[in-house]
């Protein structure tokens, strides 16, 4: 890990201390980009919509059709926008959770999908689907329970004396993932054959089945979760350096650990319940945030939340347009980008 200074090129951003001003500016830029993405991506799709009229209708917040036909209007407001908002919530949730797990496990490779935490949430969601199919609200609750159980399992398995080494962390992830995968197979057997195909898609991360009832819940959890972790950013900065150091410097390690466990599991649970396991978002986005803005969680967590939303909106637009009118699961696109980055990070550590 130790290199000579002249060989390592450090971005100037890392030299500047993180201040409130820099955080606010970065977040404002990302928020503006997110807003533009929401508008632009809603114009793209298998059905061509007239751009000018669509922008006009969006600007009126749906109060005026601006000359769009009823079908076009419905495509824009009933299909595309809810899906884009879900993509934003899922991306924001997963990236925030990833940043949280990375600080907690002291390892930039920690990611909800790779650690099997998404699988835990998937098992919970499936149990809700099979046994309480009519009660939609049970899905995020059981998904949260599953994610929390998987988080605790990974944490217990991965944590060594020196924090989670990459090898230990990945092994813990493999163990939890494979175990839960076999549980998923068992539950799948209980489903009827017609649902299995849509189910396989969902497991890979699929935003096409946006549930209107759950959308506000997912969005709320994303915002509350991102705020909760951001408000613990200073503690997480020290936790990232080691639990013992953090304790010595005044962090109530036990309490902060519980906050991250619960909040990150809630974020993963609600996003998996809504969209299945979209992989690698929690790895790619926090990494990019740290690379461009530095490791200080006061800036990297809110930036990862906004960046994650942006990333999944774009990835999902690719997923639904690249072979239109057919669709790919968004998880296939994020994995295509994330897996090579994971290999790169692993080689570097």
């Amino acid at each position, binding site marked *: 890990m130790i290199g000579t200074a002249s060989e390592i090129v450090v971005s100037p951003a890392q030299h500047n201390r993180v201040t409130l001003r820099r955080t606010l500016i970065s977040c404002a830029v990302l928020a503006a980009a997110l807003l533009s993405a929401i508008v632009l991506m809603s114009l793209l799709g298998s059905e061509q919509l007239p751009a000018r009229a669509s922008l006009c209708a969006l600007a009126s917040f749906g109060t005026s059709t601006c000359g769009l036909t009823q079908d076009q209007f419905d495509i824009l407001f009933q299909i595309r926008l809810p899906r884009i908002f879900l993509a934003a919530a899922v991306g924001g949730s997963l990236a925030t959770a990833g940043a949280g797990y990375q600080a907690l496990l002291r390892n930039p490779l920690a990611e909800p999908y790779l650690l099997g935490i998404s699988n835990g949430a998937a098992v919970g969601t499936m149990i809700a689907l099979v046994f309480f199919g009519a009660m939609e609200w049970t899905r995020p609750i059981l998904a949260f329970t599953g994610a929390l159980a998987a988080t605790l399992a990974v944490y217990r398995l991965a944590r060594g004396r020196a924090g989670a080494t990459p090898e230990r962390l990945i092994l813990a992830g493999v163990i939890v993932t494979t175990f839960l995968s076999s549980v998923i197979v068992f539950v799948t057997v209980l489903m009827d054959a017609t649902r299995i195909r849509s189910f396989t898609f969902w497991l890979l991360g699929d935003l096409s089945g946006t549930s209107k009832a759950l959308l506000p819940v997912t969005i709320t959890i994303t915002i509350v979760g991102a705020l909760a972790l951001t*408000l613990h950013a*200073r503690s997480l900065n020290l936790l990232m350096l080691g639990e013992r150091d953090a304790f010595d410097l005044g962090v109530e390690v036990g309490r902060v650990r519980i906050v991250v466990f619960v909040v990150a599991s809630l974020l993963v649970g609600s996003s998996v319940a809504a969209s299945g396991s979209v992989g690698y978002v929690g790895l790619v986005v926090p990494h990019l945030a740290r690379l461009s803005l530095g*490791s200080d969680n006061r800036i990297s967590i809110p930036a990862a939340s906004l960046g994650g939303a942006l990333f999944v909106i774009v990835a999902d637009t690719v997923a639904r347009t690249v072979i239109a009118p057919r669709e790919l699961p968004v998880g296939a696109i994020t994995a295509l980008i994330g897996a090579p980055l994971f290999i790169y990070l692993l080689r570097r550590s």
Partner: protein
Amino acid sequence: MLEARDLTVSYDDRIAVSDVSLSLNTSEITAIIGPNGAGKSTLLRTLNGQLSRSAGTVLLDGEPIERFNRRSISRRIAVVAQEAELRFPVTVLEFVLGGRFAWATHSGWGWETERDLHVAESVLRETQLTDLSARLMNELSGGERQRALMARALATEAPILLLDEPTANLDLSHQATLLRLVRTRCDQHRAAALVVTHDINLAAEFADNILLMKHGRTVHSGRPEAVLRPEILQDVFEIRVLVDAHPVTGGPRVTPVHEKLI
């Protein structure tokens, strides 16, 4: 300032520290020496409230340490231990500012104040790290990193310093530099320091008091001249030693005598 009375600490069924009492006073460095497994680090971790004890009391400013919350303990006691491996890029300045956490008005959120920055700058100067403050921690040499660790502890402005083998892995000049920083803190800021070390001669040179431990118990404690006597050391370390006067300082100098040399 910090006092332990009849401290006993046990892990499961093994007793690590048994009936140890000590008291740290202003402007004094106390060194704990003893063979591996004597309970030195355990004792240090208990004084800081990290390990729970099975008997005895720890008094901080005359009050039981349980009465203080985590952050107020960290404003009074700073710890320098072997550094943990860093897996995230952190600059030296960011690292040192970590020492200001306990002074923040809110425990999780907030920004460093002007005063925090001022303190960080002054400890960076004190540890001669000013020029390196923008560098990443994992670019530093071992000696520089240990100094950054020391700088972070000094940045807490805690009047009590607990150091767990701070000079292990350091060369001769860095060992002296580090202990001189501790000495300066004690002399100029009326701080008290406790140093766990394996280096008996370094302890003899820098410490005002020495606590000699074996099997979790205090074997001897007092001034270096009183503790570092051949018959005592021979008994504790089970090796023949020669103790003479240091030609420059006049303090005790300990040299192990290996059997094959005789």
